Structures are given as structure tokens and as C-alpha cells.
């Protein structure tokens, strides 16, 4: 008799455990309108706001006078673990006639970048930062090699002094 009791108990326990699971999914199916975990991505583009620390790509900060804070010290280039940054420097002539090192082209390989944030940490003048853009897909790989300093931009006054302090 105990065999039959065990048998029925087994079947009952099994059915109960299955019913518990079905209750849960059934509840989710019933209130499917309220709870959603997916984002409707291209539709929510306007409201989608990424946190300010999000690492999207490296940008060189330009102000309204088209001036940036990059001195061309190549600290970021040295800090980069995989060679995403290449800074080509030139020598400007200061009004006093002295030669001064300045950035000519700030080349940034987005295709190599791993968003490790080490360049931002290394920059002594806070000239670069991580932007919150994330739609990086392009049809040509060459478009991922970017020049960060805008044409005609120059270094902001007073940055050099601040750095040496």
C-alpha cells in the first residue's frame, strides 16, 4: 500500500511543481502590457540617454573659438595599449620667434580602440574625453580612422602654463 501512496505522492508533487512554473509564466503572459524588459531601440532614440561616463569614442574637446587643450605631449599615445592614437606634431613659431611643439594631426583609430579609458586618465590637460555616441557602424573601414582636431583649431591660451604647474 505504501508503494501506491508513494507513487501517487510522486505524481502529485510533480504536477504541483509544474503547475507552479506555469502559474508564473501565465501571470507574465496576462500582464504582458505592463512589464517589458526590451527597449524599442530606434524608436526611443530621442529619449535614450546614456550615462555621462559611458565610453563611446574619444573626442577632443573644442570650445566655441575652435580651440582645444591638446599640447601634443603624446601621453595618451603612450598610454594606449593597442596603438589607437597617433599624434603627429609640428613646430609652431611663437610671436617671440621661438619654436613650440603643437599638435598637427590627432589621428584616432576607432576600429582599434577598446574603450579602456587609459588615454583619458593619462591626459595631463584634460583635452580629450569619452563621448556618449555609440552608433559607430560605417560601410568603409577607413571612415573609422578619425582626425580629432578640427581644421584650423589651435591650442587654448594658458594651457601650457597650467600643465607645468
Amino acid at each position, binding site marked *: 500500500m505504501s508503494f501506491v501512496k508513494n507513487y501517487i505522492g510522486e505524481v502529485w508533487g510533480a504536477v504541483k511543481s509544474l503547475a507552479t512554473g506555469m502559474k*508564473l509564466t501565465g501571470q*507574465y503572459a496576462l500582464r*504582458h502590457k505592463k512589464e517589458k524588459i526590451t527597449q524599442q531601440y530606434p524608436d526611443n532614440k530621442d529619449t535614450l540617454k546614456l550615462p555621462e561616463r559611458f565610453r563611446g569614442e574619444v573626442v577632443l574637446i573644442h570650445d566655441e573659438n575652435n580651440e582645444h587643450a591638446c599640447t601634443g605631449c603624446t601621453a595618451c599615445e603612450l598610454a594606449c595599449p593597442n596603438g589607437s592614437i597617433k599624434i603627429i606634431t609640428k613646430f609652431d613659431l611663437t610671436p617671440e620667434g621661438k619654436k613650440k611643439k603643437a599638435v598637427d594631426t590627432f589621428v584616432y583609430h576607432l576600429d582599434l580602440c577598446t574603450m579602456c579609458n587609459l588615454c583619458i586618465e593619462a591626459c595631463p590637460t584634460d583635452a580629450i574625453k569619452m563621448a556618449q555616441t555609440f552608433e559607430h557602424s560605417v560601410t568603409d573601414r577607413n571612415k573609422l580612422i578619425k582626425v580629432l582636431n578640427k581644421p584650423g583649431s589651435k591650442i587654448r591660451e594658458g594651457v601650457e602654463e597650467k600643465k607645468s604647474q
Partner: protein
Amino acid sequence: MWSLQNIADKVHDWLYLTFNPTLAMLFEFVIIGALAIGLFAMLGLILIYMERKVSAWMQLRLGPNRVGPKGIFQTMADTLKLIVKEGMTPDGADKLLFHIAPFLVMIVAMVVLAPLMFAKGFQIWDINIGVFFITAVSSISVIGVLMAGWASNNKYSLLGAMRSGAQIVSYELSAGLSILAVIVLTGSLKLSDIIASQENGWWIFKGHLPVWIAFVIFIIAVTAETNRAPFDLAEAESELTAGFHTEYSGMKFALFFLAEYVNIFVVCALGATLFLGGWMPLHFGTNTQFNKVMDYIPSVVWFFGKTFFLIFVIMWFRWTFPRLRIDQLLHLEWKYLLPISMINLLLATLIAIMNWHF
């Protein structure tokens, strides 16, 4: 009142009046064939859309919502994609069997539609062994699955096909026995008789314990027979990638896919017919007011409503449970379902003899 029976009768009368009997019968065949293919395609589209939505609701997702309003054309777009896709045949495959298999599975799924009663008096073929016909023909589909698995020349496919063979053959036993419980109470294999016997109450209400047990066993067994999760061992995705249809692509894959859904429809329709009264509206004793309201709903709505409810239950299973292992699957059948359904059949016989049901 508008009903499918009237339309069918009118078409039938008109055909026989206008043409000679042979030609009229030929025309009827053509019409029925077109309707069956149409139903086949519609069911595929609707059920796949339904599965996607049900799964999405249970998984806190939206489901298809881009193609057409609420994504209703998503399945059509997918079908279009599958049609234009190249149908690959692997090297070393048995070409003939490989190409026949999906059609065999599909034809079986279509033939089984014949004795189903879709509405009051609306039936393709009221054969006197209707239930037997359905169980007999639907077991042919395992041959198609085995053919597909063997002919693909792929070890995953072969394993999937072998699993499917073992599974379908053993689960047909308990499915058959649970159907028998209702047959014993009705005393007929004819689907129209079975429905007629439920005029004063569906079997699930008036059949007492044996019919409830038979109903539960029937649902479990047909879930296994149609290779649906948690018994989807034939195509166990995480084990055999796609099981017996691993090597199929394009429209041949789509035929397997469609046949699966039509099979679900057929078994659920059978379940609705046997246990839930087919197209019979819901009646409560002598409460005539309520019964009149229920009668007002067309019988075709009743039939499809019950069928789709059962389909929903089977989908519910799929999106809740983990998969069984092959030996546990056979354990469940031979150690639990078969003995229970055998004892259950005896109980049903006892009730039928003693006339204990209403």
C-alpha cells in the same frame, strides 16, 4: 441563420444540379483541396504568429511588431524569405528520400484534416472510423521524420530521427488509450456521433474522474507526439542543434515547420472534439437564458475557440518547462502514463457499463 453548413449544402446542390455527378464530384474535390491548402497556409501563419506573441508575453518581450500593424505580416515576410532561399542538399544525402520527406510529413498533416468537424455539419468526410483514421494516419508522419533524419547523412539528424521514432511510437499508446476512454463512453468512432453525444454536456464535465485523467494524459501525449517542448527531443536545440531537420533549408524546412503547427492544430482539434464538445456551445443544465445566449455564437467560433485554447496550453508548456532527457521521456510514458491510462480505461468502462455518467 448564417452557418457554414448552409453554404456547403448550397454549393453542393448547385454543383449537382448544374453538372453531371462525376464532374460535380471532381469540382468538389478541387474546392476541398483548395480549402485544405488554404487552411494549411492560414494555420501556419496564424499559429506561428501566435507562438511568437505568446512566447514574447511570457518572456517580457513585445514579439513581432514591425511588419504590418502589430507585426501580423512578420510570418508572411519570413515565408517569403524561405521561398526565395536556396534549398541546399548536402553531399552524400539520399537525394530521393531527402526530397520526399518534408512532403510526406506535410501530406500526412493535411490528410488528417479530413474527418475533423469544423462546425455544425461542416466536415469533409464523415467516416465512421474517424478517430481511428486520425490516430492511424498521423502515425505515418514518423516515417517522414525518420526519412529526413536518415537521408540527411548527418549524425545529428540521425540521432534526432531515432529519438523521434522512439518517442512517437511509445506516446501513441497512451494517446490512443486516453482517446479510448471517451470512445468507450460514447460507443462510436464517428466524430459527428461523439459530438452529438455531448449535447447535454461536454465529456470533461460529465465524464467524472476517468475523463479528467484521460484529458490530462491526452494533452501530455499529444505534446510529445507533435515533438513540442518539453518533449522536443527530436530537434533538441541545445543538444542536436536542430535534430532531424538540421540539413534542411528554404521551403523544405518551412514545410516541416508548417507541418508541425498543423499537427498541433489537428491534435488540439481532436482534443476539443473528444473532451470539450467540438462545436457544441457551452450549456448549463436548464438555465435556458444562458443557453440561448451561448447558442447564438456560431458553432465554428466554438470549435476554433476551444482548439485555440488547447493550442495556447501547449504553447504555455513550451515556454515554461525544461526539456526531458530521452530515457526520462520513455520512463514517463512506460512507467506513469501507460499504467495510469490502462487503469483509467477500466474505470471508464466501468462507468460506461454502470451508466454512472450523466
